[in-house]
């Protein structure tokens, strides 16, 4: 469904001169229909940058993006806008994900209006929004509120409702639950997984929490300093990482896991 080939992104370091820093270096991966690729990496390693490139919110410096059989690396913004419906992304921070001055209902419905699925405030639109909030677990009273009047978890549910409303073929979830507590996290991940079973979208799931990635992914890629170090089936990566960085990451994960187990046991 989506394939990135030799993607790099660099920024100019200083205004004068031409030193550049590479944020993303030569990244290649692909995700099939109905499949989830988990992306793990430390903070600042370039995950969000990669997410923006995969959704063409940003152009890569070099490399190629192929979506649904078409090369979208260099299509114009106007062309891209028409395809937006098929490529959706959820961001990390629920606080700023939605326009603070627009009510939840309109934040969810706007995307359907843009892509001419429903007209503004029609009965069809209202029915569809209601259906969506049932799926993501919001109540009707939430629809008339502003984002500031919802909890972080509720905002992410609303974001998920928007993402699902257009039945995209590819979804990027950039640490969608990292700021939520564990039980809410689990609920939202389950909604995402269930939706994937139904709609068969490809998903790039980004997180620095190995437990979360393990729960939702079919394959895992480990990223560090802009590069993908290794990639493979969930269990093979978690049980037998091949790189030093991967080993250290898993050791940490298990150490944390045992600490947590200890805490729960006592």
């Amino acid at each position: 469904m989506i394939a990135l080939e030799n993607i790099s992104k660099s920024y100019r370091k200083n205004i004068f001169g031409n030193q550049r820093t590479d944020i993303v270096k030569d990244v290649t991966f692909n995700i099939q229909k109905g499949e989830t690729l988990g992306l793990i990496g430390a903070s600042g390693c370039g995950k969000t940058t990669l997410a923006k490139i995969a959704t063409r919110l940003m152009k890569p410096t070099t490399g190629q993006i192929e979506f649904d059989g078409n090369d979208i690396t260099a299509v114009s913004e106007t062309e891209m806008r028409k395809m937006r419906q098929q490529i959706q992304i959820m961001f990390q921070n629920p606080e700023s994900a939605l326009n603070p001055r627009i009510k939840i209902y309109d934040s969810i419905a706007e995307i359907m209006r843009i892509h001419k699925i429903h007209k503004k405030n029609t009965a069809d639109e209202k029915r569809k929004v209601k259906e969506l909030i049932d799926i993501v677990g919001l109540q009707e009273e939430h629809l008339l509120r502003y984002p500031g009047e919802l909890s972080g978890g509720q905002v992410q549910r609303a974001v998920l409702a928007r993402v699902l409303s257009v039945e995209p073929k590819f979804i990027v979830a950039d640490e969608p639950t990292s700021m939520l507590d564990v039980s809410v996290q689990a609920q939202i991940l389950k909604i995402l997984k269930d939706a994937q079973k139904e709609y068969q979208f490809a998903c790039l799931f980004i997180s620095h929490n190995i437990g979360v990635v393990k729960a939702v992914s079919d394959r895992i890629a480990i990223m560090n300093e802009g590069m993908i170090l290794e990639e493979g089936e969930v269990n093979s990566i978690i049980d037998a990482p091949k790189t030093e960085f991967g080993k250290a990451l898993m050791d940490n994960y298990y150490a944390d896991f045992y600490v947590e187990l200890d805490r729960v046991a006592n």
Partner: protein
Amino acid sequence: MKKIIINRVLMILPTVITIAFLAFSIMYFSPGNPAEILMRYRNPEGGTDPAALAHYEEMLGINDPFLTQFENWGAGILTGDFGESFKTGNPVTEEFFYRIGYTLMLSFTGLAFSLVIGITLGFLSAEFKDSWLDNLLRFTQSLKMSIPSFWLALFFIYIFSTQLRWFSAFGYNSPKDLILPGLVLGLSNSSRMVRLVRTCILEEKGSGYVYTARVKGLSEIQIFFKHILKNITLPIITLTGVSLVSMIGGSLIIENIFGLPGIGTYLVSAIVAKDYPVSMGFLFAYGVIIVFINLFIDIVYQFVDPRVRDCANAEI
């Protein structure tokens, strides 16, 4: 914060007294004898009869000591009595309220233009940040600051009145005659608005919701009007209020160039005609209006977005 506000309010009284003192002194020490001027207005063919002159001097009390005269004038002001115009014989307050309407119309037209110009150019500047367009806009903003508004006014009159004949160059016959002076006023006071809009947009563009809007498939212009504008209206409105002072202040020159019958034009012609009561009264009123708007702004500032403060305090 409360303290600052109380301080500002308490400062009003001495400030107003100082303005009254200055307005009075300027006219008191200006060359010429008010009695003689009044006599000429009342009786143009009367010649220079010393007895008549003495009568007028007596009537105006111009042989009293400076402070006595100031007290008498000040006491009148306190009761709302600014005297009568030498020229027309009408009460100064009446002349004032008749003309302030034109000044306010011009100021608000200028405000509307500065808003439209500020939002349009600010949007373009932010949208094409660091491009040649942004640089050009920023260059012209700073260039504009150093071009006096009367120069701009003469330039516009030359282009739009003399050459294109779209507008009349002088006088007021219909609201259409406010367009050109309003444009000049708005343009020469729009730099702060352009900068504020640019800063605010660039700040908002980093927010998640703007990316979300892009993901939804909105164009940059749609994102601006449907999403960003809602989040930056408050600072824009605040700066608009602040700009009103510059507009009223700037209207003095613009009114005179375009011959609009506002208080600025009348004040200048009163000074030229040595119409003492009008000159003193209008100078005083101008000062007081500006003091009160500034007081209002100072108070608003206490509650306001720091971005507005930065833009409003910069230059001019």
